[in-house]
């Protein structure tokens, strides 16, 4: 197992290198540079030249990339931000990434907490009113995009009923373990709407998948065996059926991670949350090269690790799966 993990991680290194180099080259091939200040008063050419020399932007791309890679590997340094004066990419990421993690993890937790029970209930009461309504709700939930649901929730619960704050994020620093905020009322009241916005669609797809897969598993022979040897219905459902039916659910957790990342871009923008998604979008417009590459790399690492964890969860859920 350990060997398998190590090998997978080693195999993903070429992906990271290719992706960061492509980002590097692509961004520099784009017309315009970080010191254009489009729409603002421009800098004299000589100063731009000096700035470019200071940040080694006048060197060939492979040399710049080599320098960036060396700083990353040797000093864990993602370089300076070119537009946010005096701040490094490490600073910016360190400040905003925990907030995105809080949002994403809570949405994922909500999705599992709603999705799995709803899907299980629908499957156990197949073709009942419970089943039809939960299946219908699931398709509706999958179909409402974040960018529609977010403003709708704000309109109802923040502007209309005045129960919850309209925007911003209520977490207080410092975070425990780097990302766990203090569980204050302020934190939760700010988190409710964004987490629901992000989690609804996810929970709907989890519910659909859980239902479909549980329906299949319930008809298997080993479920009949479990019942035949006199196990209680709940033990049969939870320990024998549900555990196996979660395998396809785990498969979509990988793509779901990608959906959470996209979702955080939109949700952070709608709710004015100072997370990393905002920096990804604005850094591209600003030609802040090191910030673009740094954030891209973090997303890529995140997605690859998510996929790896998905594969490992398989092995845990399904004893037939063995990696070597």
């Amino acid at each position: 197992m350990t060997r398998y993990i190590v090998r997978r991680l080693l195999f993903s290194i070429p992906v990271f290198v290719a992706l960061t180099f492509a980002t590097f080259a692509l961004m520099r091939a784009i017309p315009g540079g970080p010191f254009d200040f489009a729409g603002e008063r421009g800098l004299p050419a000589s100063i731009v030249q000096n700035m470019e020399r200071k940040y080694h932007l006048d060197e060939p791309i492979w040399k710049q990339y080599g320098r960036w890679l060396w700083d990353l590997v040797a000093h864990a340094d993602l370089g300076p931000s070119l537009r946010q004066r005096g701040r490094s990419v490490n600073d910016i990421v360190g400040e905003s990434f925990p907030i995105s993690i809080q949002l994403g993890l809570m949405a994922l937790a909500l999705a599992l907490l709603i999705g799995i029970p709803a899907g299980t209930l629908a499957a156990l009461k197949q073709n009942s009113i419970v089943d039809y309504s939960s299946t219908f709700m699931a398709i509706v939930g999958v179909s409402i995009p974040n960018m529609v649901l977010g403003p709708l929730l704000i309109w109802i619960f923040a502007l209309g009923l005045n129960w919850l704050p309209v925007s911003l994020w209520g977490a207080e620093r410092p975070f425990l373990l780097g990302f766990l905020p203090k569980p204050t009322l302020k934190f939760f009241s700010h988190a409710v709407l964004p987490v629901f916005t992000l989690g609804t669609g996810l929970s709907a797809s989890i519910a659909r998948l859980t239902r479909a897969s549980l329906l299949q598993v319930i008809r298997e022979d080993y479920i009949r065996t479990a019942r035949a040897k006199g196990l209680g219905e709940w033990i049969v459902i939870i320990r024998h059926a549900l555990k196996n039916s979660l395998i396809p659910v785990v498969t979509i957790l990988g793509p779901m991670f990608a959906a959470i990342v996209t979702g955080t871009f939109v949700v952070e923008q709608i709710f004015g949350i100072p997370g990393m998604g905002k920096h990804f979008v604005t850094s591209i417009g600003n030609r802040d090269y090191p910030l673009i590459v740094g954030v891209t790399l973090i997303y890529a690492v995140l997605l690859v690790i998510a996929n790896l964890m998905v594969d490992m969860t398989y092995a845990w859920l399904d004893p037939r799966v063995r990696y070597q």
Partner: protein
Amino acid sequence: MAAGEVALRLAIPQRRERSPWAMALRQLLRNRLAVVSAIFVTLVIGGAIFADLISPYDFATNHLKDNYALPGSTYLMGADALGRDILSRTIYGARVSIAVAVVAATVSLVVGITYGLVSGYFGGRIDDIMMRIVDFLYGLPILIVIILMQVYFKALSRRGSAVGLVGLIIGANKAMGGLLFIFIAMGLLNWIGMARITRGQVLSYKEKEFIEAAHMVGANNVRIIFRHLLPNILGPCIVQETLSIPAYILTEAFLSFIGLGVDPPTPSWGIMLQEGYQALRSYSHVLVAPSMALTLTVLAFNFLGDGLRDALDPRLYE
């Protein structure tokens, strides 16, 4: 001989011959949600095609005195920040969504199926190499690649002084309101899943007796692929593709929402939502039309895809 035999024939109830497609269609028509969705999708497609005829105003004309006008007899769904008619913009917005859905799905089907067929049918070394490429592409975070490519394309078209082929593409993109680059960015990677599904299907059919029989009577590879394999795998592939259409529509809306989609003033539901949510507190009515349009269209495609899947899966009905 006649009389006895005729009587015998009449006695046996004639079983009507039904092709699998006719049976699937019958099954689909029985699913009321799917039928309603199909009608709705047809309406949206019709609206997209005939937008010039049915929309009351031009999508880009400002009526600056009427900015944020409430819904009423002049503007049925109100007007936006620049006094543009929201209903007209929503109708034109269907063009973008439908075009993206059609093009992305077609590219994914054609490229994915071809790739999967070749890889699965010929097998061996070719299969190995082709699947390694797919595996590598699969490892890429697709969304981030799409975003980066959109940024590159956008900057390229903003400069807009290129000549030759690049200039031609940029010109075409401008004429299409920025859609061409969205097509390219989305089409480039979305076929991967389809290629995998097709290959899996091909592998399972390849060893079946009827393929062997075709080999035996001397059919060549091209004939076997197109005449015997393709008809069998096409159904599941089309269903799979229908199920991913909502994702294409949402990706375009997402790109437009973060400012990397179509170029203003081309109306896209994503752009309208982006402009609208900023005025949420005072003028929430501007969000109604694009929100409904986007959600209902995605919903309809989801119901339709589900209905198709159920209809084409013969195990589900007798």
